[in-house]
């Protein structure tokens, strides 16, 4: 009986965690992109060529 209760608890917790899934519902992505960006200092160049 005790074993059954534990199994039931485990199943319920697992189901709940699966329902919560990624935690933030259907909003957001959250990929960590570890690629360095270039030198933004250069963006001060070419002001007149922002067509």
């Amino acid at each position, binding site marked *: 009986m005790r074993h059954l209760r534990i199994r039931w608890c485990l199943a319920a917790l697992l189901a709940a*965690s699966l329902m919560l899934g*990624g935690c*933030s*519902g*259907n*909003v*957001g992505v959250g*990929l960590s992109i570890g690629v360095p*960006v270039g030198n933004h200092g*250069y963006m001060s160049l070419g002001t007149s060529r922002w067509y």
Partner: protein
Amino acid sequence: MRLRLTGIAATAALLASCALNAPADLSGMSFSDEPLVGKAVWHDLVTNDLDAARRFYGGLFGWDLETSRTGRGQDYVLARDGGIYVAGLLQAAPRDDGANVSRWLPYLSVGDVDTAVQRATSAGGDVIVAPRNVPLGRVAAIADDQGAIVGLARSNVGDPDDATTAGAVGRVVWNELVAEDSVEAARFYERVFGYQATEIERRGGRYVILGAGGVDRAGILKEPAPEWPAVWLTYFGVADPVAAASRAEQLGGRVLLAPSPELREGTIAVVEDPAGAVLVLQQWPK
């Protein structure tokens, strides 16, 4: 028995971590039935300093910030403007070389992420993050054939429709690729995302509009100077670019290009946030 108790404890810990996240309230947003292919449907800030990003963007745009978690257990901050979720902010994994990876990353809607990634590699692009499932749906990130990084997404719940994402102060109002060769870049994006690219003349130069389904979705600007990196720029609406640039500086950012008559008639400012991610402040309405 110990194993079972460990299992219960681990699951409870997972639930506890998720319990930090109130379910996202999507009642202020409406979604398309089918993917709006080519539309930038989400924007993430990947940052080297999440705390500074909270202060900067909260102060600059007045966003409500809700702490959530990614599927991998990282802090993930959802930014909301009124009833609309605008963006996500997340801490980048540190690199051994200390290089800055802070960037805004748009996610472009595609019908099938895996197929689009295959098209991208066939067209000369590289896979940065292979297709994977996240709460939103299925996503990936690629570098285009000139090195600019962009995300791809197929949402589980449809894409936020154009009424939901209409331009406004504090929201994304445009996405723009800066490319060494704008014509070649247009070919790449036509092939991978199915855009119709149209080259137009304005301000004495040429600019490419990427359209899909009769809607202008993004632009391509030929790099204004040869030293520029290939990059996707995210434009945010502000009431007054001069005041917004000044506020950005007060909040720890840096003005790269201040509004001036030569720079799109004073309607934009280009700034870095405290961690070095670039964003464009666009006067709105235009």
